[in-house]
């Protein structure tokens, strides 16, 4: 039996973000949202472990109250229940705030053996919430995990970490926290029945009021500037003539010889 919390973030689909070339402002008016890419791996891993060992999976997210849509999406991927920790002010949170909010909520209401986070969120990619949350909960943690196994004793989790200097296998007593890499699994694509089932799963609505404290960021944003790139953007067809034109251009640029 494993009680697992999978943490996921509802993020802007960065492919929808357009840039105003002149002012270098981000045009965010018509962006779509999605579950942060690698958090799908986190949810998937939680569900797989649960399927293997029994127990249950809670999907937990911190976000603005309008992000409701994410719950159905997350729950259609397998968890039994969701914690929706929301407040209108929970937009553009700093990772340290998110970790603190998650920690308060989890301490107050969850019993868990394992917490799984993604390697990093698609928007901030701070790789911070997971380890910071572990610290606040005072539990051991391992980042960059690409394989998870429950030890024979069922009291420890064995995590294989992929790091700059090689592989490292660690064992940790439960409860513990891991952050997972995208190659740990291939997330399932929810089926119609799973999508319909998700609508009936319970969601615990946790508000700022329930948390009973406020969360101030330590980092203040002073500016955002879109990255722009001057490129020629010439598009050609695939025939020999075009290939010769491009080779000619590359020779002239002096980048091939």
């Amino acid at each position, binding site marked *: 039996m494993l009680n697992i919390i999978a943490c996921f973030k509802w993020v802007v689909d*960065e*492919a929808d*973000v357009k*840039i105003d070339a002149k002012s270098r402002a*981000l045009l965010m008016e018509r962006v779509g949202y999605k579950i942060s890419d690698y958090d799908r791996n986190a949810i998937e891993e939680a569900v797989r472990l649960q399927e293997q060992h029994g127990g249950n999976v809670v999907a937990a997210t911190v976000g603005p109250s309008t992000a409701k849509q994410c719950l159905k999406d997350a729950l259609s991927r397998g968890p039994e229940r969701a914690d929706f920790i929301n407040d209108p002010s929970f937009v553009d949170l700093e*990772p*340290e705030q998110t970790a603190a909010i998650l920690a308060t909520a989890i301490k107050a209401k969850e019993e868990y053996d394992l917490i799984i986070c993604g390697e990093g969120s*698609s*928007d*901030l*990619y*701070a*790789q*911070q*919430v997971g*380890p*910071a949350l572990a*610290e606040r909960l005072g539990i*051991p*943690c391992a*980042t*960059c995990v690409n394989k998870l196994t429950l030890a024979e004793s069922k009291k420890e989790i064995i995590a294989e*970490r*992929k*790091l*700059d*200097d*090689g*592989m*490292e*296998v*660690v*064992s*940790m*007593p439960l409860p513990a926290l891991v952050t997972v890499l*995208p190659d740990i699994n*291939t997330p399932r694509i929810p089926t119609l029945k799973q999508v319909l089932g998700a609508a009936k799963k319970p969601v615990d609505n946790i508000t700022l009021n329930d948390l009973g404290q406020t969360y101030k960021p330590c*980092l203040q*944003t*002073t500016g*955002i*500037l879109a*990255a722009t*790139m001057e*490129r*020629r*953007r010439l*598009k*050609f*067809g*695939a025939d*020999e003539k075009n*290939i010769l034109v491009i*080779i000619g*251009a*590359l*020779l002239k640029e*002096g*980048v*091939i010889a």
Partner: protein
Amino acid sequence: MAGIWIFAENREQTLELLNAGRNLAQDFKAKVVTFALNVHLAEEYINHGSDEVLLLPLLGQDQSLESYVPVIAEVARQEDPDVFFIGGTQRGREIAARVAARLNTGLCGGCTGYKVDQKNKLLLMNRMILGGAAVQTVVCTTRPQMAVIPPRTFEQAPLMEGRQGKVIELPAAQPSAVKVINRTPKVQESVDLTEAKIIVSVGRGMEKKEDLSLALELAGVLGGEVGCSRPVAEELHWLPEERYMGISGKKVKPDLYIGLGVSGQIQHITGIRDSKIIFGINRDENAPIFEAADYGIVGDLYEVVPKLIKELKVLLKK
């Protein structure tokens, strides 16, 4: 003790951070304090500009570098540094996040550069967001101002003559509950993609591993190296991780980047942004790579690349 503090898991990165630290020390009129794993390194860091070195205790066999977190956080709590830079390896990132949480301070993850507000002694730190689509500037209003600095952001600090510094030994660490039960060091790649003048990059548009030969042949004709997108390395495991480019991979600046079946999503483009010329081959005319490329061919790579190789062989007389 205050000062500009530095921790990185290896020598190269520590020296890079020392270079930044020395400059900051002047701005902040503070000393540079560096963590070192052994006495030998401690001496070297002093010779490269550190004023003080905090010597970390030896770790047990089954302990990973991350078990230094309580020691590092504790000494930082006592000494109250102004700035704390941590080298952006994977372990470094975990350590930074956990130390920042313990100190209740802000951390700029993936800090690609900064300016100094001299008057308020604040760092205006840059970090990439949205996969690299934008750069956000943040200031940390608590102490210490912390940042994770990716490798090769700065040059290494030069050796300075006749420097003296204090070495302080830190107390032994409480063994961490995280026990290492196996280690497999990575075989170092002989190729450094960041040095390549021409990079042929393979994306998921390549159907099978054997077809890498196409990319290798193209790279061979051009005298370049083969790189890839993150899923090709991480999910398909066709190429080593050192070969993928992007926000979480290598940042390259070749003269010519050729993408074969690379969709060109922002996380990948962020790593190749500084290429002189970008040339993409993709069969989807709406693929984002064409927005980021100088030259693009809309077509099947299995048709285009052989033709390209053939013509190049003729024209380059190879």
